[in-house]
């Protein structure tokens, strides 16, 4: 993987800007290829898909279909129609929370390290329809086994955005299926960084966002097995979700359109399709090993200064995320000081307040890496981190 060549595709990393971007778990930078593809829609065929018969509309249709195919291939879905476009991971999970047939006292199981996007929809469903929620300890298979009995839906995060550790989802999906439960995978933090094969995993549903994997913001995906998607009742209906309506009824469209109500974010869809193309060309395995290599360097430096690393000290288990605290320095102070040095990263609880509160940790600093980050950037970062550590010595 030629990082220097890759960096040239990212205008935000122009040498003159001297920007070190380590906030990739929040959102990634976008390559020029994605931007060009998005602009192409607005410049050459700014029209709506699947409705009109004219040439521009046909072109949009074709590009949207291509993007859907790219994304289906990216996840190795059986059929393109198993890919539904949403706004983001949050909307995908909310779609399931509203469309999956859940009734009072049905059990939904999640881990203790879920993003608010995969916690709040279920808390709401608990209040709205009276489902029961169960929580297992993150990546603790024994605890998972203890809690799986009677569960109707397992909605779990794949890779945690707090510390980069992952649930053993292959095993969990297997156990879930053995116990008759359906599994929804929050892949927002895993899809951008590792090869995901929904058929190998046997995932029933999978949610992810374009903006975390070089794609545009405002576009996401819900993957679902066709037979399961067909059982869902759309919770949002409107333009292009039906073939016909009368005053009393409607004839719903086939998959995936029945879940894509109203005019879609075509530029975003097309850009997302281009983003997964880009990732495939670079190779997810290459990206994963590059991130781990950089994370090892960061972890080594953090151990040197006795930083409190959240999660395991083995960087191999934390993909491209290093979440830490230095002494009693407020994590926001650290991120603000680094910002003054042109290093962008995040501090706080990353929308996983529940886990931080339960563990009585007042937030952390998070450096999250991606394919365009370099060893030199890591060195500069560590130099400043060491300077900051001196503040409390």
């Amino acid at each position: 993987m030629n990082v220097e060549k890759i960096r040239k595709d990212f205008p935000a990393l122009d040498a003159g800007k001297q920007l070190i971007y380590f906030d990739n778990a929040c959102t990634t930078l976008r390559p020029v290829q994605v931007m060009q593809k998005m602009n192409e829609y607005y410049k050459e065929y700014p029209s709506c898909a699947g409705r009109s018969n004219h040439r521009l509309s046909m072109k949009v249709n074709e590009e949207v279909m291509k993007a859907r195919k790219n994304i289906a291939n990216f996840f190795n879905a059986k059929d393109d129609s198993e890919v539904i476009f949403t706004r983001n991971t949050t909307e995908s999970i909310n779609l399931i929370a509203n469309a999956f047939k859940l009734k009072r006292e049905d059990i939904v199981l999640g881990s203790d390290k879920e993003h608010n996007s995969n916690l709040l929809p279920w808390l709401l469903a608990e209040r709205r329809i009276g489902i029961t929620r169960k929580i297992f300890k993150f990546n603790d298979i024994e605890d998972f086994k203890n809690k799986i009995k009677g569960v109707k839906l397992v909605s779990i995060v794949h890779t945690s955005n707090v510390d980069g550790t992952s649930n053993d989802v292959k095993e969990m999906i297997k156990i879930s299926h053995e116990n008759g439960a359906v599994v929804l995978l929050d892949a927002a933090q895993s899809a951008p960084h590792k090869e995901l094969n929904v058929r190998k995993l046997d995932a029933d549903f999978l949610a992810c966002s374009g903006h975390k994997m070089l794609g545009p913001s405002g576009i996401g995906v819900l993957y679902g097995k066709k037979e399961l998607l067909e059982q869902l009742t759309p919770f949002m209906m409107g333009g292009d979700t039906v073939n016909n309506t009368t005053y009393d009824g409607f004839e719903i469209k086939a998959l995936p359109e029945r879940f894509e109500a109203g005019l879609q974010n075509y530029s975003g869809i097309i850009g997302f399709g281009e983003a997964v193309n880009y990732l495939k060309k670079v190779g997810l395995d290459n990206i994963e090993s590059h991130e781990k290599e950089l994370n090892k360097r960061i972890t080594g430096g953090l151990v040197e200064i006795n930083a409190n690393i959240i999660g395991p000290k083995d960087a191999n288990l934390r993909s491209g995320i290093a979440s830490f605290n230095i002494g009693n320095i407020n994590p926001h102070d650290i991120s603000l000081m680094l910002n003054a040095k042109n290093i962008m990263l995040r501090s706080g609880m990353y929308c996983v307040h529940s886990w931080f509160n339960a563990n009585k940790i007042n937030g952390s600093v998070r450096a999250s890496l991606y394919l365009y980050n370099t060893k030199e950037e890591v060195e500069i970062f560590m130099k400043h981190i060491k300077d900051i550590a001196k503040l409390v010595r």
Partner: protein
Amino acid sequence: MVICLIALPVFLILGIFSVKYRLLAKEAFRCFFKTVTLKPCDTGLDQKIKSEITARLMWWPPLASIFYNRFNVISWVFAILIITSTFFVGQGAYNYAVYGNCNGENSNQFCIFNVVRAEQPEKEACSKIENEHELHPEKIKIDGYPVRGDPDAKLTMVEYGCFGCPYTKKAEPVVRGLLKEFAGDVNLVYYNVPLSIHKYSIEASKAASCAREHNKYWEYHDILLENQDELSDGSFARFAQEIGLDEKEFSECFNSSKYDNYINESYNGALAVGIYGTPTFFINNVSLVGPQDYRTLKKMIKDELEK
């Protein structure tokens, strides 16, 4: 939190010039409001300031460390300084509004609001004598000296001036303005002190005395000060002509020595009073050396009139 007390006025001032600082000023105001109502500041502004400054001090880690770890103490020190200085500025502004001088009643010290004094706070009077010394208003003898304004006015302001002195010229608009404002209540006695450090000052005194013979003293006084930079051997006759004096009569007077004694006596009289610089003003027993701003003199006049 206390940093917001400092940040608010700073960002308010910077906000005049930039929207960016207006937003920060808003944040500072919210934080300020919370601080004074004893609630925790939740804007994060204090954190931003602390971290930004610490990052800039990182070139010398011990300094950055002291700043970071003692931020609250440092903030308090600056907050107390800013509150104290605000108090003194307020006091100065009050003094300026009420007494015409930010240092208080009857003060003759430097005041930044007094523009005239600010230009040359050190030496603002023309002087032949280096050292300042005590003035003796009780020794003033003004009988026979020219009076401007109502001779029966309640109050007399005495000005010791020199026609060649640029500070005497500088004081002139203020003096004239006050005589206009207090017409009928205040008059001016101009006591000329020809300082030899100014070329033609003795000639100017002599010429003015000649003009006085024809009741044209004040016209000549004014033309001399207005054209102070043009004083020359030939200028005195020209000025006389301009104010309508007979050229021949003026020249005879000017070329004679009839006023030599008078000029010497005047000069010695000024020394007896202790005059060490021009202009020097006396309003009853209160003296002021150097050109004064309008408000200062006006305040003194009003006070004397009210006595």
